[in-house]
């Protein structure tokens, strides 16, 4: 047993209202810079919908995550080391800018400077890629709240998997929001894909980071991450990703997305796990066993043997204590209501989700069914508008049983609490019916409904004496790399939002031409620092050729 500590998050989707505050504050904090205009470390997508980047969950197409070989070993879906090296200059499995969206701004200046005329002036959209006037056809959140209907949601890879009848109708409409950050996986396929070893998982808290000095811009990690949560900064030519707000977490405060979450649905806490057990658990044969397998690597911090082993592994006492108070532990292990996102990617993700409840479908309503009754509430779980199959494809590799169990537990909590709230005697059979006790239901209710800040975020501060474990953090500000958020230079979303920044257009062209070129240009990227224009690396400038 090798005990490691992992900073983890649970999001309760039942409470997410899709306000996108998390995305905005994350963007303001981390990607409000040129080079990463199109990048949202935190995004919130409407389901059903295509997601961001479009259809990222279609691994046949994007080749992210791990696959299990016939011999029971894991290898990156995009191919082993040799294959990756062979394709290093022509990685074909990258989302194009159109799969994210082409970032734009507006000619705000025109509103102030337009000469008097018989029409009021208007600010037209301008592409941040080409600098030219553009027509907006996709955005960071194009299908918000079912915008685009079937034309867009029809492209949802999950929907395609759960039903032949993909078409959505008014009467049977359903929708929920899915906020996403990097999963900070126990078995990260991005790190495994990096030829330069620039991606590392911090030993102290498991946060996955890109070393900006070591990154050579191969972008294999973009392909390797099945959640598409690694992005290419086209100004620096390096990969960037969600940092779990480590500068905040190290001093014991939650990530920006959690701090500002209006729905109060995020929980942060530690999970202790057995690092020796990860590889085997991630390689279990049946994908539907991955949820249970991942739970099996978590170690109970209340178990004295685990605590002792943790101490031996150098985990400080206050961290062990924090692991015992971890709301993430409670939600995943004690109440069993949180589920992993796409365990079938075999990366052992560490941002888990409580699936959402939803209205019952009309059938029940018209037949006089009363969803308020305890019995009926249980029955109604099968009649919820969001198909359990859809949720199962997200959280349990298609196995509906664990999802149904969670929904039943939430329904039981409501039925149990209703009696308490009405001053009626509690009905213990409601609790035992879902394998819980009344007390446990009340504890779970507390955590889901009224837990305050310091119970939702149990984050032990980093230990200065262990700073070496944080690797690069010992010296200087690790955010202070060229083009990083530690530097000056506001991007198009900042106070200079009106200004068009002629950002490294070339890089996008390079990206595109490399995806499409027959014979990739050969340049020694290892010697390129992301600045300047090595001969042959970029196609001719815009003014030298017509744009495609």
């Amino acid at each position, binding site marked *: 047993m090798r005990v490691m500590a992992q900073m983890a998050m649970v999001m309760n989707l039942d409470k997410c209202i899709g306000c996108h505050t998390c995305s*905005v504050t994350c963007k303001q904090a981390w990607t409000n810079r040129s080079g990463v205009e199109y990048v949202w470390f935190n995004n919130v997508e409407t389901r059903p919908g295509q997601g961001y980047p479009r259809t990222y969950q279609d691994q046949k197409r994007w080749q992210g995550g791990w696959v299990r070989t016939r011999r029971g070993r894991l290898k990156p879906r995009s191919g082993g080391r040799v294959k990756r090296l062979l394709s290093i200059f022509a990685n074909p499995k990258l989302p194009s800018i159109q799969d994210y969206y082409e970032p734009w701004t507006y000619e705000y200046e025109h509103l102030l400077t337009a000469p008097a005329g018989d029409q009021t002036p208007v600010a037209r959209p301008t592409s941040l890629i080409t600098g030219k006037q553009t027509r907006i056809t996709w955005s*960071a959140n194009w299908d918000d709240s079912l915008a685009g209907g079937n034309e867009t949601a029809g492209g949802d890879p999950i929907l395609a998997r759960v039903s032949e009848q993909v078409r959505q109708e*008014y009467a049977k*409409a359903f929708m929920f929001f899915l906020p996403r950050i990097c999963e900070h996986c126990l078995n990260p396929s991005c790190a495994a894909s990096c030829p330069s070893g620039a991606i590392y998982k911090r030993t102290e808290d498991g946060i996955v980071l890109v070393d900006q000095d070591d990154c050579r811009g191969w972008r294999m990690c973009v392909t390797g991450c099945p959640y598409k949560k690694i992005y290419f900064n086209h100004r620096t030519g390096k990969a960037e990703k969600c940092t779990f707000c480590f500068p905040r977490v190290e001093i014991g405060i939650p990530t920006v997305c959690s701090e500002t979450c209006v729905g109060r649905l995020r929980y942060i806490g530690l999970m202790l796990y057995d690092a020796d057990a990860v590889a085997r658990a991630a390689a279990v044969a049946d994908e539907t066993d991955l949820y249970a397998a991942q739970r099996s690597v978590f170690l109970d911090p209340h178990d004295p043997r685990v605590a002792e082993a943790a101490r031996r592994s150098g985990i400080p006492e206050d961290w062990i204590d924090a692991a015992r108070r971890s709301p993430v532990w409670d939600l995943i292990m004690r109440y069993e209501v949180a589920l992993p996102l796409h365990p079938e990617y075999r990366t052992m993700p560490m941002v888990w989700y409580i699936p959402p409840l939803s209205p*019952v479908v009309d059938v029940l309503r018209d037949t006089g069914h009363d969803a308020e009754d305890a019995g009926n509430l249980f029955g109604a779980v099968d009649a919820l508008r969001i198909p359990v199959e859809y949720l199962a494809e997200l959280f349990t590799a298609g196995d509906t049983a664990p999802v149904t169990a969670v929904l039943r537990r939430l329904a039981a909590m409501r039925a149990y609490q209703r009696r308490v709230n009405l001053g009626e005697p509690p009905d213990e059979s409601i609790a035992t019916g879902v394998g819980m006790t009344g007390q446990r239901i009340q504890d779970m209710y507390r955590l889901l409904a009224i837990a305050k800040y310091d119970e939702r975020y149990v984050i032990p501060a980093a230990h200065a004496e262990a700073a070496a474990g944080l690797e690069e953090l010992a010296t200087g500000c690790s955010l202070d790399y060229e083009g990083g958020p530690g530097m000056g230079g506001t991007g*198009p979303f900042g106070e200079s939002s009106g200004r068009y920044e002629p950002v490294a257009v070339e890089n996008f062209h390079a990206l595109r031409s490399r995806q499409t070129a027959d014979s990739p240009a050969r340049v020694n990227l290892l010697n390129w620092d992301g600045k300047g224009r090595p001969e042959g690396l970029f196609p001719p400038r815009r003014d030298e050729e017509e744009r495609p």
Partner: protein
Amino acid sequence: MPVTRTPDAHWMAEARYRGQKVVVVSPDYADSVKFADEWLPAAPGTDGALAMAMGHVILKEFFVDRVTPRFVDYVTRYTDLPYLVTLVPGADGALRPGKFLTAADLGETDREAAFRPVVWDGATNAAAVPNGSLGHRYAEAGVGRWNLDLGDLRPTLSCVEGADGEAVEVELPRFDTTPAGVLRRGVPTRRVAGHTVTTVHDLMLAQYGVARAGLPGRWPSSYQDGDEPYTPAWQEPITGVPAAACARIAREFADNADRSGGRSMIIMGAGTNHWFHSDTIYRAMLALTTLTGCQGVNGGGWAHYVGQEKCRPVTGWAQLAFGLDWSRPPRQMIGTAYWYLHTDQWRYDTYDAGVLASPTGDGRFAGRHTADLLAQSARLGWMPSMPTFDRNPLDVADEALAERPDDPASYVDEALRGGRLGFAGQDPDAPENWPRVLTVWRANLLGSSAKGNEYFLRHLLGTDASLRAAEAAPEQRPSDVVWRDAAPEGKLDLLLSLDFRMTSTTLFSDVVLPAATWYEKHDLSSTDMHPFVHAFTPAIAPPWQTRTDFAAFHALARAFSDLAATHLGVRKDLVVVPLLHDTPDALATPGGVVRDWADGGTMPKFVVVERDYGAVADKMAALGPLLDRLGTTTKGVTVDVNPEIQTLARTNGVVDGRPRLDTDVRAAEAILALSGTTNGRVATAGFHFLERRTGTALADLAAEHEGKRITFADTQSRPVPVITSPEWSGSETGGRRYSPFTINTERLKPWHTLTGRQHFFLDHDWIHEAGEALPVFRPPLDMHALFGEPRLGATGELEITLRYLTPHSKWSIHSEYQDNLIMLTLSRGGPTIWISEADAARIRVRDNEWVEAVNRNGVVVARAVVSHKMPEGTVYMYHAQERVVDVPKAEASGRRGGIHNSLTRLLVKPTHLVGGYAQLSFAFNYLGPTGNQRDEVTVIRRRSQEVEY
């Protein structure tokens, strides 16, 4: 709710975890549906029909088939259901509900007798006058009796029990048919003092169609009877909600209220608001919470989630906002009527107000234009009007004082009656009556709130506009209001805006003053939704040339004063005041019987005040001496605030002996010091004042905080919970959460109404004329009949006529910020119109293609958002999508496509103009005509995809 009350939304999920059941009524699969256990997709504007049918179920199952003691007890104590109403014959002899039977009918002769309605006392088997009515509120005889204590009285709910009268048929209007029809249903009666009377409860059962044995008339045979209002089956074809679901939800709502002690709640959003007949929708919904005893109960009742931006420390705020410390009364106005007249929307009203009337009315609206009714309302002092006279009130004041120094008001009264002086509203287009200077502060009139945007542009601003409507034909024009052949264009000389953003309004402004944002100023913030007062504290000083609102207005005042000292000097001004709520003015119209001047009708009040124009800036910067003498008065409660004035003199410092208000923080301190919600002494003093009138104990509610004074520094360190105060009807005592009317239900303090109870029945003449004496369903207006718009559903080549709604959008409520780059990047990047897949297919438009929406009011160009979450027959253009970003020229007009309000306009409902009668009396931000626009329709068409800017 998750969209417009984003920060509160988590409580909804959390309440569900406590076992709360949620039913969402919404035409689209709105964001709020995520909280629902059940979704009832009622068609737009039909919520009133759904609520009426639910009311039918509740009355039948919880009052008639089985008597629910809790409900009966509640409605007997706290509502007008037991009160007696006369039945009077119409022209054809058929009986109709008339007026409340009052002490005057029983022979009492004092002035207030007509304001003391009567019940039948089951204990003594005689007519009786309960305490707590308006007639007890001001009279000397009412001291100690303005309360809801019934004593030994046992008001009977129905005339069935032991009555001597026979059952008679009454006529009640129905509006679900075209034309409107009449229901004939029986009520039991009694004979009292020579009148045939019944109770409001009996009328309610007749109105809702809940049959009882032995009563004549036509009644629904069962819930499945779809022909007779207001059964569940009746509402199904109107709303689209299955009858069984309607009945079951109604039953659950009432059953939950019974089991939980009144904790069933209706959260009402903007979707049922802003209809022409929203007041009827409200009353139908309120009937549900009131019948089930949920009003005035924490966790139950009516949660009004739109347009209730009220200020917790209201008393202090009002002193400063209206300068009451220096001069009273202030000038106040009703916004809807102001813009209706001054943007000339009235000239495009092509219908006779008679079309809105009830078939049971006696024709008082027929042949009259809404502008005529508005003029009458102003003339009778019901509603304020601005400008009031056709002459400068400074000159009128001089003239009146010269002619009659002792009683200038009587001079004005006579000049008006004699026609020597006129109301501006009788000739709104005369140049002397135009608004000339408009300051837009903290608002976005032309990008957000101006309903009838194109009318504003053409007539008020005189810019180009896409208005397409035709003016009223000669026979459709007003009779009392002057029609000028050439409609004025460009009335304004100066449009001034204060803003920190380029908005659709600043685009049109002559002068824009750069404003500080929320994070650059000191201010206070509060709402009636939350029991807290918050501070704004600047993170940085206002950058560049920006100034805080406070600094900007003080600078303007200073410059104005310097000029005015010589140009205007000291003058007398004549302020015209409407008949006000919470004053004895509410007794101006006994029985709600309307008399115009010819019959000795009412007038507004005329008050001469002194204006020292050179001193305006100095006065703004100091707390004035009038406060020492008159104290503060809020909702009829007067408090001597001399202790607070002395404290403020000490803490704020003085200028010329008066407490300073020369900085934003000092102004905030004054607001906090003078309000009961933030000053325990003021709250306690206010309750003591009230106790003299009610004769009941109230001051203990604030006693725990009597020594507490919330200062600005307190609000800066954290949001501060407010103190229970007579300014509001809820109690926070002992740390409980605010819920309206808990002081009324728990402390027997009357509501500020005619009976002192919550009213189902309104007996004013105009309300009767509209057929709205009782809760009733009125469908959305027929814009084809009223304005000649195409019929709903009419199709042409690539075009279709649909209901046009402008809901509140995600990320912006009225004015700010949905069009910043980040929010636009998280959506569609510019103006959009949401349309159902079926309607989109009919006009062959695909997602993100350009469409044009056109009606008589204007033109909009936007991209279509096609979604299966939208119902057929309705498009949404979310509120406040500005014309500054990505708005091309329209094919229909060749001009820049407009904003969401380019397709809307104001329509004034006559009954909203009623004043001078009990609770139907004007109060600032409480009563007046609504700005409604949801009844609108539009033609929507696919346009050329090549757009020009």
